[in-house]
């Protein structure tokens, strides 16, 4: 369990996935990838077995929970799928703004 702060970077313990937190909830949660807890970038991975039954993560895509309290952005793709407190995160529909610069 950990507090996901906006701007925080997390890596998967069992695949190549890396994410950055765009929006975090106020309470501590358990962020997983491939079914295993993710660790803060640069930290030691925890041991566990990769569950790669999901779609995995895609570079540059945003993932959110149903309640819209969490949003992470995939900065490196991998074969594990993201989850929070046991529930899978979903791919967010992008609504791009018009380019301003």
């Amino acid at each position, binding site marked *: 369990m950990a507090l996901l702060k*906006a701007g925080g970077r997390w890596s998967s313990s069992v695949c190549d996935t890396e994410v*950055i937190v765009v929006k975090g909830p106020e309470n501590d949660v358990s962020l997983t990838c491939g079914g295993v807890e993710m660790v803060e970038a*640069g930290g030691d991975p925890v041991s566990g077995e990769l569950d790669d039954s999901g779609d995995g993560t895609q570079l*540059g895509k945003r993932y959110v929970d149903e309640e819209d309290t969490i949003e992470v*952005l995939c900065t*490196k793709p991998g074969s594990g799928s993201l989850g929070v407190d046991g529930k899978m995160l979903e791919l967010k529909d992008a609504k*791009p703004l*018009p*380019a301003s610069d």
Partner: protein
Amino acid sequence: MLLEMAAGGFGDRVAVGSLDDGLTVKQIFDHSGKAAKRFRDANVENVAMIDITSPALPICLFGASWAGLPFVPLNYRLANQELDVLLERISPSIALMQPETQERISDGSNIKTVNRDDLLASTDSEEMPTDWSMDGEDTAILLFTSGTTGEPKAAVLRQRHLVSYILGSVEFMSASEEEAALISVPPYHIAGIAATLSNLYAGRRVVQLPEFDAKKWIELVRSESITSAMVVPTMLSRIVDHLLSEGTDSEGLPTLRAISYGGGKMPQPTIEAALELLPDTNFVNAYGLTETSSTVALLGPDEHREAFASSDEEVRKRISSVGKPLPSIEVSIRDENGSELPQGEPGEIWVRGEQVSGEYKGVELTLTEDGWFPTNDGGWLDGEGYLFVTGRIDDVIVKGGQNISPGEIEEILLRHPSVSDAAAIGVPDQQWGEKIVAAVVIHTDLEVDQEELKTSVKNVLRSNRTPDEVVFLDELPYNETGKLLRRVLKEDLIKMGDGSTV
């Protein structure tokens, strides 16, 4: 991080330059890694750039970030002595500059330099550092603000501000492969930095025009099949003039899908002429400041068209607004004591969001405890949440105790068919504290007298807004990024008022 993602996602796309000989994202990545090593080995605190825009810009920008050093683009047009002062403030540093620039620096021997060729040279044997500096608190950019009053301040933008801006406003790889953006703002302008970052992250090729010229700009749009471009108001007005001068034979700008503009108030006649001349181009008005990592509010293409076509005065007026705040940004209008004003009331624009820095080097943080940044821009919100910017609060004219925003007077003067440019300035006056002097530039071959212009303002605004004097000038003073130098103009007007004739 942004570059690393781009290199992983679409490394083979051309990032900067022409399709046949430009640099790919992967090449920018490799050059930036080598630059990072060079910067680290130089044992400096800052990476400066005193040069026109070129492919060396992204390499310098990303290389500095990679090395964990601030990137400091300086205005290469500054006088030698001014450059010396700024370089002194960021010493020790390594600077990207060409040999001819180096000769201008008095302490040239003491500053480590690289030139464009150094950064673009392919040195395959050189090692790449594998460790990115990844601290969000690292200073990414130090930008000296144009310093219209006193010594220039160095605005600090940290990695977390820029990353928040990009993640909040751009979707990764959202551009298709044939898209290309033309950048004609210089590297020392926040828009030049923001455009470099956001186009790379979107996967959009960038074509750079080092020194703006309307004819060259139009030629590049045509030869490079440019799909989007960012311009400041003076650029757009020159582009419009040039297109008009091509007459009915003009082939137009068929590839150009979008123009965004910002960096100063757009005269309404200019934008209306542009909308008419380029009916297939989307227009986006972006409002932002250096201290807010560029754009905080946008008026989108549909809103432009709706306003342009509407017969409802309320809706039509929105073409001169800067649109609505980005989803990641809050806007609040405050009075002098920092209390929020009711909707519709003019006051100071305050903004809040992850991309907002409000920090200057060596100066106390200007953010309030709860994260609001007072912009020093005046403005108001309409009933639908559209933000109108009236100008710098320092520019407000105080006449007989009344606050008068120069913008509304200028807007009316500019609508007069004979007027090509206009500025309303508060000039010290014994009776009123300040009086309103309108400095006006007239189109060649056209004529208008003082009284007619005064009447045109009197017909629309309250009588205390009527200019006390109208002064005709050949041109108004601008800096090279199109910002009206009000302070210079004010001094000129005061001198003229001292009895000399105009």
